[in-house]
Each structure stands twice: as structure tokens, then as C-alpha cells.
């Protein structure tokens, strides 16, 4: 990226921080249906190969230069519980999110608007490079100062391992993996995610603010979960990489 673009981006980010709460409030009651697909990313063999060939060293450079690191950390561990750690995240998932932000498929919150601005200068190749860079780290530990509640985590273990037959909710680990490592193609890793961010994400799926899951697969599950269950799951996954 050229320095002019960098300056523009930085200004835009600062402006977004200032105005985002206003913008969010005014957009909130609009109907969400756009009629298009939830995401334009389709996992054809060519697309999977394209992401797999992402350049890790260029990803590392972009992580600093494109300001990813200021919220997501320098080794993929977020410095605050408000942002997701990206270390060990599946490259396909990170790539899909970046594309979804750029194409307006993941929008609706102030944080989303910030990301939409942040990804504006990125090319598809940049996104693949960043995705591969973050995937090259092991699954993250919690940010410094963030803890998980082991008692609550225990409450979630049945749901994670066995699911709930009476509500036809599949076990979380049937898609997200027994180590919270995610699975093909774009099922995200959840291990070591700050609980605050996990809870916020699930609430956004539940109320439909977040709708970039194709065929509403996660939205439909989140709708059936209670607040207590979501909180317990958050602590379960947060504690998965605890030493």
C-alpha cells in the first residue's frame, strides 16, 4: 500500500470510530434483506487453492502495515477481549470474513463498519496472504488479563460434546472440532477466543445482525440457544487453550 492510502485509511478509521455509534443507531431499524446471497465466497477447488497459496511473509508485512495488529495483535492474539484473536484460525475462514467485509456482507455494527474500512485497500491476494499468516500460528491463548470461568465452562460440555437431541441441536464439536480447531472448509476455530467476543458474536447471529453464514446455518442454531448456554460455551472455548 502507498503511504497516501495509509493516511486515508487511518483518517477513515478515526472518523469511523467517531461516527459509528451515530450511523449504527440510524441504520438499526432498516430491513436487513438485500436479496443477494449471504456471502459471495464459494469454495470451489480453484478458490481453495488460491487461499492455500497465500504468502505468509507478505501477510506478516500487511498485518503491521494495514493496522490489523492494532486490534488483532502481532502474533494473532488480540490485546483486548473486544476483538477476536486470529492465531490458528482457518485460512479459509479469515479469507471469507475479509471478502465479506469488503463486499458488505458482514455489516450492521460499529465494529463491522470499522472492518469494512480497514479491508478497503486489500486485494484478494492480500486477503489470502493475511489469512495464511494468521493460520500459521498455533491456536491462541486468552489475551493478558482475560480469564475464563471453569465452572461455567463445565456446564457447556454436554452441549459441545453431545448436543441436545430434544431441540435437534448438533454438538458444537461436530463442526467446530473436538479441540475447537474448526473444520473444512470455512468452519472457524473457536479455541482461545475471548469470552466477551464469543458472546457478542452469538448474540449477533441470534438477532440477525450478523448474517454472512450461508443458508443461515449458524443463525438458526443461535436462535435456539439461551443466554446462559451461550455464556457457558464462551467460557468452554476460552478455556480450551488455557495452560
Amino acid at each position: 500500500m502507498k503511504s497516501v492510502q495509509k493516511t486515508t485509511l487511518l483518517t477513515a478509521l478515526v472518523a469511523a470510530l467517531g461516527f459509528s455509534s451515530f450511523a449504527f443507531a440510524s441504520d438499526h431499524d432498516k430491513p436487513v434483506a438485500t436479496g443477494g446471497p449471504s456471502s459471495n465466497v464459494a469454495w470451489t477447488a480453484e478458490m481453495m487453492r488460491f487461499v492455500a497459496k497465500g504468502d505468509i511473509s507478505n501477510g506478516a508485512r500487511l498485518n503491521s502495515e494495514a493496522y490489523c495488529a492494532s486490534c488483532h495483535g502481532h502474533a494473532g492474539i488480540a490485546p483486548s477481549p473486544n476483538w477476536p484473536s486470529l492465531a490458528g484460525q482457518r485460512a479459509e475462514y479469515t479469507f471469507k470474513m475479509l471478502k465479506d467485509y469488503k463486499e458488505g456482507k458482514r455489516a450492521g455494527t460499529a465494529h463491522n463498519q470499522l472492518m469494512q474500512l480497514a479491508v478497503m485497500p486489500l486485494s484478494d491476494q492480500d486477503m489470502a496472504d493475511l489469512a495464511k499468516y494468521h493460520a500459521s500460528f498455533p491456536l491462541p491463548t486468552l489475551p493478558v488479563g482475560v480469564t475464563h470461568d471453569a465452572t461455567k465452562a463445565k456446564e457447556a460440555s454436554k452441549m459441545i460434546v453431545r448436543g441436545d437431541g430434544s431441540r435437534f441441536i448438533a454438538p458444537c464439536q461436530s463442526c467446530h472440532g473436538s479441540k475447537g480447531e474448526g473444520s473444512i472448509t470455512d468452519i472457524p476455530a473457536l479455541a482461545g477466543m475471548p469470552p466477551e467476543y464469543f458472546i457478542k458474536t452469538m448474540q449477533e447471529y441470534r438477532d440477525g445482525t450478523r448474517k454472512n453464514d450461508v443458508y443461515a446455518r449458524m443463525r438458526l442454531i443461535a436462535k435456539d440457544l439461551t443466554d446462559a448456554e451461550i455464556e457457558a460455551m464462551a467460557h468452554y472455548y476460552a478455556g480450551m487453550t488455557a495452560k
Partner: protein
Amino acid sequence: MSSIHIDPLEKKWIWAVGTIVVLTWIVQLYYAIADSIHPPSNVEVIDSAKLHMTEEFAEKNLGVKKEEDGSYTVTMVAARYGFYPPMIEVPVDTKVKLRIASFDVLHGLHVPGSNMATMVVPGYVSEVTTAFTKTGDFPMICNEFCGLGHDYMYAKVRVLAKQ
């Protein structure tokens, strides 16, 4: 020509098994001709990876549509681990054509109590036409092992009385 020795008891069983096999063939042949039961004839290819980008299986176009001749067309997607949309409503004793495609791996589909059943093979569109004869709520279940959440893969079919 030398003959091999076969124990008489074994000989009886060979005849018994042979008779069962031939009888089964006769029963299959009878129903194939009498009820014209045959392998699915609808062979239609589709790119499963881009399913959500197609017109027919776009998210906004899934569900139940009434045709001009009074029959219904149901468009659904099978993906790990669910059928989408998760509930459909159709009238009883009316022709229902189900068109379904997989977004990922091999799935199967069965609505107990009806003859709505088909495999959902990635890369193909499956089409079944039937009429539900009883009102009520019926499960639509996956009957091809598709992964660890297979036994939770479910949709509800609500068959309503005719108005």
C-alpha cells in the same frame, strides 16, 4: 465325469436359499412393472460449491411455491447439519414436487410415513414428486451418514388440511 460329494443337508439349504433369491426377484419384477417403480430418472448437474450463487437455490428462493396447475414445488438445500428451510408447509393430497441439492457432502432424505425419499448427491439436483396422504407434522431426516452431526439433521414437514 466325477461328481463332488454334497451333504444332503447342504443340498437342501442350497435349494432353500436359491428359492428365496428367485422369489425376491419375482417380487421386485412384479412391482417394477405393476407399479412402474424405477430408478430416479432426473439427472441434473449443479455446482454444489456455488449453490448459494445459483438462482434456483439462492437463499431467498428456497421454500414452498404454488404452481399454476395447483401443485406445489418445494426447493430445499441439504447442508451439514440441516435441511433449509427448516420447516415447510404443504397441503394434504396435493402433488408436491421436491427439488433439493447438497451444499457439501452426500446426504439422504426421508419423510417417514410417506414415500418422500431420495439421496442428495453433491453435484446433482434430486427431484421427487409425491402427495402426502395424512395431515400432521412429520420429520424429514437425513439417512446417509454425512458427518458427526448426522443424527441431528432434521427438518419439519407440516401437512395441512385442504382449505
